[in-house]
């Protein structure tokens, strides 16, 4: 089979859920356990080490809060893109998806600025338990934001031509997941002091 | 049953051995029944001309009981096993009888070293005895051990005592044993600890109180003025060598 022809298997839907949406949910499920394992490890350590609160007090809460706001806004754009795709308005969906990706870009810029300040103050990956978790968790999340943005731009390019509109919903789902992970990270890394 | 394969030299060795025997009898029975049933069925229902296969779904009540009854019996056997298993565990690992003596056991790559109180009977004083690879204990004496590691995870195992406990860096783990048979027994490391893991051997020497007192006296070094900051010299001496050399041969 050539790479572009879709097998019959792809078009069937025994569960009533389209395969694309189903696989997105499974990907999200497997991601949840990855982040879940890391977060559970962090929380267990955090409870065992009250002294980490001192390290946590050096994080920039305003930057975290700003990023929360940015990600929530971009998720709204993803919802609107899904609506546009549902009404078969590919170009509009593409526009909204690009706006969502822009949100991701701003998020990463804020993150980069924040990390620069942290590193200037001497807090790096190996500075202590809290900082190791801080950079690992936020870094892994940042990678997911980056990957989401790239996929989103690819989906947007197709959507602009009114192709593969079902993918708009899938990448939106994924983006909401990335958003929700951040909503867990923000209080755990920034607010708990 | 286990004693056929390895001496039992501590008080709780027999608890574990009886538990082992109990499990062996119960699971051995089930294994024989199940294997026997299987081979009998294979023989009985071998393909023969003119005999049709029976159509059985496995939902029939009168057949299902052939599964449900053994099933319940298995659960009963599980309970019979688990209760003593927990009791054995509880008595070995969760509660500690009052200590007569205390030893400190330290694992490092790739040797066991030991610290025990000298003739004064107090740990962390100048006459402490520090040994490498060899631990001398009194028979019929309850020892508490404090297990530590200097580098990686080790596991302090004395098979003849049926004793095993991992040593974790950064923690002190307590446990106990009460040797009840004079002799000299292996100490193993049973947790992968690097390239020398298979060579990390030690000996535990169970002595009569008289022998032990003589050993203590012979090996303890009172604090020497001018050398107090320094660790006391190796006290292993020749006894240890002889044992290790014997083992080599």
């Amino acid at each position, binding site marked *: 089979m050539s790479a572009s022809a879709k097998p019959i298997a792809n078009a069937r839907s025994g569960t009533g859920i389209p395969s694309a949406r189903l696989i997105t949910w499974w990907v999200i499920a497997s991601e949840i356990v990855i982040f879940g394992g890391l977060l559970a490890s962090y929380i267990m350590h955090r409870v065992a080490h009250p002294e980490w609160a001192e390290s946590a007090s050096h994080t920039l809460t305003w930057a975290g809060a700003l990023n929360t706001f940015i990600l929530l806004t971009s998720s709204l754009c993803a919802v609107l893109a899904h609506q546009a795709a549902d009404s078969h308005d590919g170009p509009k969906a593409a526009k909204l998806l690009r706006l969502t990706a822009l949100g991701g870009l701003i998020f990463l810029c804020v993150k980069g600025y924040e990390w620069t300040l942290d590193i200037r103050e001497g807090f790096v990956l190996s500075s202590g338990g809290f900082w190791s978790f801080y950079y690992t968790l936020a870094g892994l999340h940042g990678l997911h934001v980056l990957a989401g943005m790239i996929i989103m731009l690819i989906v947007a390019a197709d959507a602009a031509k009114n192709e593969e509109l079902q993918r708009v919903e899938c990448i939106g789902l994924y983006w909401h997941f990335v958003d929700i992970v951040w909503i867990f990270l923000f209080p755990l890394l920034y607010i708990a002091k | 049953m286990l004693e056929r394969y390895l001496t039992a030299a501590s008080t709780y060795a027999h608890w574990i051995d009886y538990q082992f025997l109990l499990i062996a009898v119960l699971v051995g029975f089930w294994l024989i029944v199940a294997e026997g049933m299987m081979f009998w069925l294979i023989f009985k229902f071998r393909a023969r001309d003119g005999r049709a296969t029976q159509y059985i779904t496995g939902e029939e009540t009168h057949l299902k009981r052939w599964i449900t009854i053994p099933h319940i019996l298995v659960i009963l056997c599980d309970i019979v096993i688990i209760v003593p298993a927990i009791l054995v565990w509880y008595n070995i690992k969760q509660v500690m009888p009052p200590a007569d003596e205390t030893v400190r056991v330290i694992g490092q790559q790739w040797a066991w070293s030991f610290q025990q109180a000298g003739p004064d009977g107090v740990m962390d004083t100048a006459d402490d005895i520090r040994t490498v690879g060899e631990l001398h204990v009194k028979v019929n004496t309850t020892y508490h051990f404090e297990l530590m590691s200097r580098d990686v995870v080790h596991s302090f195992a004395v098979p003849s005592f049926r004793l095993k406990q991992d040593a974790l860096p950064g923690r002190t783990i307590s446990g106990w044993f009460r040797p009840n048979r004079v002799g000299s027994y292996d100490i193993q490391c049973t947790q992968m600890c690097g390239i020398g893991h298979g060579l990390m051997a030690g000996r535990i020497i169970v002595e009569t109180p008289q022998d032990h007192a003589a050993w203590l006296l012979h090996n303890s070094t009172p604090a020497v003025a001018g050398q107090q900051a320094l660790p006391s010299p190796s006290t*292993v001496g020749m006894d240890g060598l002889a044992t290790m050399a014997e083992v080599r041969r």
Partner: protein
Amino acid sequence: MHKFQKSALYRIASRSLRLPLALVIGGLALSGCRMGATDAATRGQEVFETCVPCHNSDGSGNAAVGAPNIAGMKAWYVEREVDKFRAGVRGMHFNDVEGMRMRPMVLSLASEEDVKAVAHYVETLPPVPHGSSFPGDPKAGAALYATCGACHGDTGAGNQDLGAPRIAGVDDWYLATELRKFRSGVRGTNPKDREGRLMRPMARTLANEDAIRNVVAYVETLKP
């Protein structure tokens, strides 16, 4: 359609058949040729694999794990010290962390022949140059070296008759570590360690850490 498939799968399989079969047969044939070491030199090289994880395949050592540079060390000295480790004369002190790692490894050697073979192999390794790892004052060390020179020779080349090994060209961190061990009694206190018991009082003439550093710095300037 499926005929084409069949032939495709068949072709992969039959092509991949020949190589493994040839390898298996060839391997069996080759392995039958040699069932063990032919001579001591080969055996020494083979057994030296035991030492490689710490001392490296060129014998250059690894300061991070406390393994000294042993390339080109004299066979008589290697053999003597290995035997001391094997007998528990060295590496049995409570605080000798490096010794406790070394002792089990030499205990893994199967026989005295293997010890001899590996010691001779070590001697054949070409010396590996190394840098210095800490500062010291060689001029101040020169005066202190007079004590050492008596046995180890003015050039630090060692003296087999006196049981004194070559020290010129040995890692400075290793010399310093061993001097400290001799001073504190981690090494050289075992009654069977004849040379160590001679060395220990000599090491104790070094008054302090500076003296150790200086004399080691001086040894580093010696050419064997």
